[in-house]
């Protein structure tokens, strides 16, 4: 193989890598990606929710200025203490929410700062203070409303 052809192969490889990385920096499907969330369920009819584990992640549009996340503890914390949910927006602490009534849906609305970068979506992470076995359930999260 000639040196020219080798060089061409390397150049093509580097170019492909650059294009792939460029695409993966802000892929259009990122809004549908989640982690630590089970599938959608419905209870009572008309109320959609997903169970978290100890951590959960979802994405909302970068241009959103507020976000409302329905949260319900279902199981109380140890000795009846509240279940705490830490909410982060692209790694920045947004709020700590204490769920004191296990049966009540809480719908906190969070103001979202303007995103400096060029991404289409911002990452929202939830960290839940307690998880209940045997199915390792954190809290119920409902449909997120963004404006």
């Amino acid at each position, binding site marked *: 193989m000639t040196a020219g052809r080798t060089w061409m192969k390397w150049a093509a490889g580097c170019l492909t890598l650059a294009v792939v*990385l460029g695409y*993966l*920096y*802000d*892929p259009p*499907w*990122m809004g*549908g*990606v989640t*982690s*630590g969330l089970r*599938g959608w369920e419905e209870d009572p009819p008309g109320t959609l929710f997903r169970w978290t*584990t*100890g*951590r959960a*992640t979802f994405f909302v549009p970068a241009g959103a200025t507020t976000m409302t996340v329905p949260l319900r503890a279902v199981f109380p914390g140890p000795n009846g203490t509240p279940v705490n949910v830490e909410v982060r927006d*692209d790694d920045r602490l947004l709020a700590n929410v204490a769920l004191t009534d296990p049966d009540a849906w809480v719908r906190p609305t969070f103001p979202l700062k303007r995103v400096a970068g060029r*991404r289409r*979506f*911002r*990452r929202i*992470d939830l*960290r839940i203070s*307690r*998880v*209940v*076995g*045997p199915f*390792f359930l954190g809290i119920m999260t409902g449909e997120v409303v963004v404006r």
Partner: protein
Amino acid sequence: MARAVSNFVVAAALVATTAYATLYGSIDAPPPIHSDGYSYFVYLPSVFIYRDFTLERLANEWYGGPYPAYTGLRRWPSTGRWLNLHPIGTAILAMPFFLASDLLSVWSNLPRDGFSLYYQHGAGIAAVVYLLLGLTILRHLLRREFSDGVVLATLICITWGTNLFHYAVFDGSFSHVYAFFLVCVWVWLVEAWWQQPTLGRSLAVGAVAALNVLVRHTNLIFALVLPLYGVTHWRDIRQRAVDLAARWRPLGIAAVAGILTLAPQLALYKWITGQWLVNAYVTHGIEFSFGSPHLLAVLFSTQKGLFFWSPILLLSVAGVWVATGPTRALIIPAIVVFALQTWLIASWPQWQFGSTFGHRGFTDGLALAAPFVASAFAWSARHRPTVPWIAAAATAAVLLSIAQMIQYWIGVLPQADTTWAQYWDLFLKFR
């Protein structure tokens, strides 16, 4: 034909990529890391993301303390520390893919939690890559002795006539495709080491044998290929002992490399249990019952019988009788390893190995079966009237295996305990 052999790995890569994308390509597809795959993989996020080799922090963050039962992680009674059923070898081999997934997660703003999108696909892609690397080495080994037609037929039979492809694509997070790769490397290395035991080869022999033990402890039996390679009569054993004694220095180097490779696992066992060597299944109350093995069931039953689900491997049995040339050097090692492997698997209380397609206990050693499948094809090529029959039988066996693999993937075939009645009722049905 030579071109087809040269392009085989590329073709296998295309088929594997297509199958993987179909199974796991959509956003809401099930995660590639599942079942046993979780416990093989869990070392990586625990060490690199949660900075904790004890596995404690990950359990607290995700599950509020205890790991789910399906993961097989249990606390060792006397110390309360987490003991994983599965050793660290698969995680070591998957590590480059995990680290790439981690970097890519940062780049794409995905959570660095160890289980989000790219970590899942990193594990899935790793399995496909190890399949392709293993097939590349196997092709190299076969090509030196067999014609292009025989090599191509053998590679197709091993890839799709057995459950190897399934364990690279569907259950890629399990250990089996990693062990397949290591056994391919091992056979190649053993041959090279007997030709010339250089320092590099001796170090590699020790490291690869130990890494295979770290992937699956019972894979220690593959180490026997080294002393038995080239022994073609049982009466040669004494001379082989003399040959090995003469190579005490390279063997010592291999032993040191092996012990160093095993050291992290041994240290982990010592820290968790206070013992250097542990049967992790003790925490589940499972131990071998060597006195009552399910030999016939393991080999021939509808549940998970090796030859029932991968009938193409019957050619490897025939190949032992008709092997000529360099493959004869592998006859006794392969027989000894296969006999021990069968006895070990058959002596395990859960001899079906849970939910599996075919018998996954044998997937690791397919590289040792391949030269004998090739020998059977080569014999057939020398006896022309048999060619149509062997070709038809092999094609039917491979197509049946592919059809049954797809049945398993789409949930038509039971995951275990398949009865004869169930098998016939579901035969070639896809819904």
